[in-house]
């Protein structure tokens, strides 16, 4: 399974571009990048999923993990979610941890 993640920081917004498949095998990589973020320096964590093909059960949990790590004061925004990924997030109830947007704000 291939998975790539690149992180950009713009002021108090952290943008993570996820590409490939986020599943149980690749989730630890995502978790590690989330842990590297200092939540006191961040208002918004943007997950750009434009190039994310698939998210499994193991991958879904990353969203809650991110919410728990970032805490109440950081908004987590999913951008560019494809219909399959978006649907599985909503059907399993994991959407409560995040917001959705069409594209990364400038």
């Amino acid at each position, binding site marked *: 399974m291939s998975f790539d993640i690149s992180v950009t920081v713009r002021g108090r917004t952290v943008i993570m571009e996820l590409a490939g498949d986020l599943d149980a*095998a690749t989730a630890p990589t995502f978790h590690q990048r989330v842990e590297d973020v200092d939540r006191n320096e961040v208002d918004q964590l943007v997950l750009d999923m434009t190039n994310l093909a698939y998210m499994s*059960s*193991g991958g879904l*949990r990353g969203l809650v993990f991110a919410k728990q790590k970032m805490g109440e004061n950081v908004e987590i925004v999913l951008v560019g979610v494809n219909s399959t990924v978006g649907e599985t997030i909503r059907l*399993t*109830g*994991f959407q409560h941890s995040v917001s959705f947007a069409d594209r990364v704000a400038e």
Partner: protein
Amino acid sequence: MTATFPTGDRIDAFPTRHVSGYAVRPGRTMPFGATIVPGGVNFSVYSNAAQAVSLVIYDRDKPEPVAELPFPVEFRVGGVWAMTVFGLDYDRVEYGYRVFGPVEQQTGDRFDPAKVLADPYSKSLTGRDVWGADPDWDRPQQWLSRLAFDDFDWDGDQPLRLPSSDLVIYETHVRGFTRHPSSGVGSPGTYAGLVEKIPYLKDLGVNCVELMPIFEFDEFENSRISPVTGGRLYNYWGYSTVGFFAPKAGYAATGRYGMQVDEVKNMVRELHRNGIEVMLDVVFNHTAEGNEHGPTISFRGLDNRTYYMLTPEGYYYNFSGTGNTFNCNHPIVRGFVLDSLRYWASEYHIDGFRFDLAAILDRGQDGAPLPNPPLLEALAFDPVLRDCKLVAEAWDAGGLYEVGSFPSYHRWSEWNGKYRDTARRFLKGDLGLVGDLATRISGSPDLYSWRGPQASINFFTCHDGFTLADLVSYDGKHNEANGENNNDGANDNNSWNSGWEGPTDDPGVLEVRDRQMRNAMVLLFSSQGIPLIVAGDEVARTQLGNNNAYCHDDELSWFDWSLTDRNADLLAFTRAVIAFRAAHPVLRAPMFATGYERGTTHGYPDLSWHGVHPWQPDWSPGSRLLGWMRWGRTADGKDDVVYVLHNAHWEQHLIELPELPEELRWHLFADTSDPAAPPAPGQEQPLADQRVYPLQDRSTLVLTARPSE
């Protein structure tokens, strides 16, 4: 510096050897099943008589096993084989067990090393991931086990612990509830689809959804083409369990991705958020393996003698009518059942369980009924299940009828078949019933004096038998579409077609049917005990007279949502009746009435009986009319008075009303001869004539007493 618990530093998170190319270490015996542990997966399976067990590993996309790992003999503790395996892909791995019995098998053993068995403790199964998708019949194992992630963000959710006496139970089939094209949900026929209808349920006023079996089952069991319709018949209801810890993937919109566990938990969380409890219909009386001609899925190949009630010759006792009987009072099986229920109660936050054919649960290993059945005792006193509702369908298919005598340990409630029979017969105008009706209306103290009226689940209809609409539209069953020459299904339906059998345009007949349905709703919701209706009764859902629709995955059994418009009147009526019950605690009293003035106001008795003359019920064999008055006091000292009179006669009667104290007046909640929706609680209008009321034929009058304005 805050303390942290790095999972990677446990001293037992490292392999000790390799088996078939996989890094492994001796496993932990508990918990049973497959558990994700730091770095690996712990597999634990028990079999009393097995000589050797292998873990067979598959990959999601490959039909043949990827590897076979015999459990090293030194990894066995007693009858438990436990191994932790490292390096697995948790999303993709599927597994099973190959079990080798002794060379000399005992009578009743059915070990078969040629088969790969599913794990009885699997939390997720694969094999029927999408409902109705053609299985690969060439594959020897139709079912394999998968891993499930048990962590879930419950966001503070807890079981609701609603008082039993306040429950209004709505029985539904998960798929049937939203599968019809008219449902308008995004994922028809699924748990997620049900979530979209929560506003409807909340508006109706029900506070407990009882789901027909959601444990994994095979919809293709006994599947055949109907000789009558040409359509495929399925095992649609699901009373044939394959996995007691796994939710049915085919009911999940995300089942194809293996995410059914999360989807079910989300459904429970959303129902709880809206004040609705979740009760599961559970089937521990038999399994999907059938008898010796049925499929071997798990139990038979692991420990046949333990899991099933067997004759001395090693054949299967059949008290369930389906092929085998689960050996529930065997110590090992008892533990298994308890483990399963505890799992659903704690991991899925389930509020209650309804046990199908529960009389089997008090049979001993030789089939004889036990006076003190260990399983029922264990369930009644279990700490994890302590706050769960336990409901028994207190009969089985082997002649054991225990309504009122089911071993209850002061915990169990029962589906009150006597309520159903008496209420149905009175509704259609049978004679000689008023005495028994009175007992049923007051919560069946003849049956449940030890427990109170909440032991009685009252119902006219459930999934078994006619829907409410069909109960008043058909004299006899019409199950031809099942392909069994209409021989299946109950014959004693106690139904009456209101003047014509089946579909008709005759307005007179239709009016009687509507009125009868309103009568049934009033009778049910003004009785003491816990009311249960089946999904669609509130909108006159019909199965065209089929009273055994177990095999129909089609329009016959699906909830047609256009009925909410076409029968909006009945829906509004039902909603109003449910709201009325909620507004009158006296109808939901947790103790039986005494007939005396304790706890009432103005010296009126808490329960009294009436006829066309107040205080003079007609108990004679020829009577078809009964009135009852409940009198109580609310928590803040106000009068709580409800008067109901059901005239099941085909002639109208002038009813003389009981006299009220000076400051109270009778207000009209409902007269079922009027199809208009009753007023909201508190909005009832005073009767112009406080002394007499002309009640139509086959009609019910409901009044409440309030201070004069």
